[in-house]
């Protein structure tokens, strides 16, 4: 497909994308994992990426984070090449159990990001309390991650990411390991957090409903090597609502389209 980044640039009056992939290729172990991927993400956009397992979603996100360097093409952030990870880009990992420091309490884990940003120890406690309240963990400041449920640990990881005051939030199947009720609650919380902070989001999921429910746009990847197979604009009103949005005719139409795409990739 044509370079989405270039196409966006070409439209007069369209702002330059915050994150852009320009014909990005990544080879790992002699194998192309991502090939010729072009993509632009506007500031403040909520982009969802779906695709079968192993099609390169995580790899694409790691490229956006600067954790991988492309072997071909360019990844830009605010018009500058991404050479290494930066605090403005926060990542919520799927395996929250591994991404938290087990020897630090909830407050200590949030503090890690504030310390890295150079906040003084006098300013930290108030900010930590505020962040824990934002993600729905007030009163859990003194708990160790191992004393918290999966949903609480993922909230904690989100709190640490918010402490980075990110321009971009990258989320890799953040709710994949959680039960349905917890997941729906967290979806709505992420939407309101993002609406409040204005952050750009790239959200990877294998749950098609989740992708449509959350996103402004959904991209479906094709596997071997990973490349864009479908791109859908989600024109559903915001704020989204777990019941009415999911019953919206547009939601059902997009859902059908995405299901057909995924089914075709699996054959």
């Amino acid at each position, binding site marked *: 497909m044509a370079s989405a980044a270039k196409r966006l640039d070409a439209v007069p009056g369209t702002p330059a994308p915050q994150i852009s992939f320009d014909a990005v290729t990544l080879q790992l172990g002699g194998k192309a994992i991502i090939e010729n991927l072009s993509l632009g993400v506007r500031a403040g956009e909520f982009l969802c990426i779906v695709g079968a397992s192993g099609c390169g979603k995580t790899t694409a996100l790691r490229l956006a*984070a*600067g*954790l991988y360097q492309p072997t071909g093409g360019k990844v830009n952030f605010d018009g500058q090449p991404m050479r*290494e*990870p*930066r*605090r403005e*880009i*926060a*990542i919520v*990992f799927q*395996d929250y159990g*591994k*991404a938290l*420091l*087990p*020897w*630090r309490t909830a407050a200590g884990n949030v503090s*890690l*990001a504030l*310390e*890295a*940003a150079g906040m003084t120890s006098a300013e930290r406690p108030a900010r930590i309390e505020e962040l824990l309240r934002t993600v729905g963990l007030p009163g859990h400041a003194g708990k*160790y991650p*191992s*004393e918290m449920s999966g949903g609480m640990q993922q909230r904690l990881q989100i709190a640490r990411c918010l402490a*980075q005051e990110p321009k971009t939030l990258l989320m890799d199947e953040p709710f994949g390991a959680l039960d349905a009720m917890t997941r729906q609650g967290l979806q709505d919380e992420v939407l309101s957090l993002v609406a409040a902070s204005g952050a750009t989001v790239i959200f990877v999921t294998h749950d098609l409903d989740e992708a449509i429910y959350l996103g402004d746009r959904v991209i479906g990847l094709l596997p071997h090597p990973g490349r864009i197979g479908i791109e859908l604009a989600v024109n559903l009103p915001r704020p989204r609502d777990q019941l009415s949005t999911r019953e919206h005719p547009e939601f059902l139409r997009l859902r059908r389209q995405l299901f057909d795409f995924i089914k075709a990739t699996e054959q």
Partner: protein
Amino acid sequence: MNRGAILWRVASFAVAAGFIGLWQLIANLKLVSPVFLPGPDRAWASLVRGFSSGDLWSKLAGTLEHMAYGWLLASIAGIAIGAIIGSSRTMRTYVAPSLEFLRPLPVSAIIPVAIAMLGLTQAMALFVISFGAIWPIMLATIHGFAAVEPRLYEVARSLQMSRLAVILKIALPSASPDILAGMRLSLTVALILSVVCEILAGLDGLGHWVLLSARAFRSADLFAGVILLGVTGYVTSVAMSLAEHKLLAWQAAQH
């Protein structure tokens, strides 16, 4: 404490009491000449005498000092060197195997070298004790650093943490259970080598006391010294366990 733990404690006290009783019996029956084997009563009397005269205090202080300095030096150097080797994959690949080769080298082999270079001095003792005690700490640190969850390094990268901050805030705490276990092992090594060095170099300490007592056939004093060494080993090891328990409270929360 649960029932099982109490039973264990009672059982171990019973075994110790039985042992002392047997010892007294053997001594009373003179199965072994009293010149070589004093009864627990005579050993205890010698302990009391040694402490009230102050002799044993100064010997104990000497041994504790040798042990503490050697162990602390070994800990600082072992953690520092272990951290450098453990935090670099290249170093782990190229340096770690030669450490595995050096480790089984008995420390006794290094003692003549140390004596030749440093003489029968405190410096020689410090060198030998820390050389022996460094291995468990250094190898545990290397292992602990190598086993840090890679995801945490990615978190550190995305937070743009400095190399020093990554070591202090991520690698060291993550490796701390290994490091503390290594330090506990080294404590025993340091005590043993303190005694050896005191005996060889005639440095003030329980090792020297034990040696002089043996030469003078003062078996009660000899046993008093040996008992005191055992108690020293036990008490320092228990203190270390308590410190570990406190420092690793976060691990207890995981179960």
